């Protein structure tokens, strides 16, 4: 999706609090699952975010890291994972359901196509 629409739409991975840190309330570590402790500093969260982007082969899509106060996570009710599309006029064009069950990339793509087809969007 990013390869197809990355020129017309700005994509960002917004890295938030770990969903299943080994020392968190819902650990799922070891075996096939990555072993990650809950970061206690922004530096640690940056390290995990960079590892995630590499291991999941999401580079060179740009990533941004939420602060340890989880302010952006809370503003968007994002955890554990979620998709949003912000329209060119700065409003919410698409709000996906909370993951994992609501995380539907197909819906995001439909929203992107609808937004790009709009003729009343502000001119760049």
């Amino acid at each position: 999706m990013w390869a197809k629409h990355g020129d017309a739409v700005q994509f960002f991975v917004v890295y938030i609090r770990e969903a299943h840190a080994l020392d968190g309330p819902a650990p799922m570590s070891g075996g096939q699952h990555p072993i990650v402790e809950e970061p206690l500093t922004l530096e640690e969260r940056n390290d995990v975010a960079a590892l995630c982007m590499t291991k999941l082969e999401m580079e060179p899509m740009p990533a941004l890291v939420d602060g340890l106060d989880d302010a952006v996570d809370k503003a968007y009710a994002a955890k554990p994972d979620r998709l949003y599309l912000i329209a060119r006029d700065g409003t919410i064009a698409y709000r996906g359901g909370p993951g994992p069950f609501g995380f539907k990339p197909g819906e995001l793509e439909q929203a992107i196509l609808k937004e790009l087809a709009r003729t009343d969007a502000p001119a760049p």
Partner: protein
Amino acid sequence: MRLTPLFVLLALVVQGCAWCPQPCCSPCAPVCCGGFVDVTRAEPAPPPKPKVFAIGGEKTTWEYLAAKYDKDRDGAVTLAEHGRGEAAFANIDADKDGKVTAADFKGPTRMQQFIAQMTVARYFQTDSNPMALSRSELEAAFTSFDTNEDDDLSEAEFAAARKKVDAATLFGPPPMPKGADPVGSMRATIDTDGSKSFSLAEMKAHFASRDDDGDGMWTMRPPRGGARPPRPQGPAVGTVAPDFTLSPPEGGAPVTLSSFKGKKAVALIFGSYT
């Protein structure tokens, strides 16, 4: 030309000296000579901080924790050795004995127990009420799956049963949390004798262990203590997107969401590695 100062100058250069901007009363003064400091005697770089994720090939959580925190190699990590706060320590000290050992990771994790229960609730339903699973439903479904009638659900029998249930369901198997392993979670939680099959006795024991009120039913109901507070919804479609300024993990210029207004739509993919 006086040779002595030039000879000294050349000797210092050969040693690897550099111009020191500090005054002679600074800490580097003892090694300074006329404004030069011996850079070959510079302070060694501090050791890199340990990462918070496995990078040494550790396969299990205990291997990772022991390698990183068990400084005295006594097979146990204490709160003091761990050093990442009491809340985090309490989450990994499963048996609450005040120390983290391999024994704390022997049983199924809370997530594995949850996924095991979700999987059983999914596949052992025999009536049209997906919100409840009775013990009799569980036993009836087990009997129908146990094709050789040996009171034991082999891997093959259970695989065939899942395929049949998934095919009969309009939208196929439900999505699972990232990295979830439904059958592996069932094995970790329910297969207590390690036989890689699920006996009727094991299934009944699992059902009983999750039947909090002992009424022979698993039901979707609020937790003890009252209803769970409603989950935050996030900003609705059509409302102004909450603005933010965040930085990339590798450093670099921060990014403000509102800077894209009037220019480009922005797709936000929220998530984490785990």
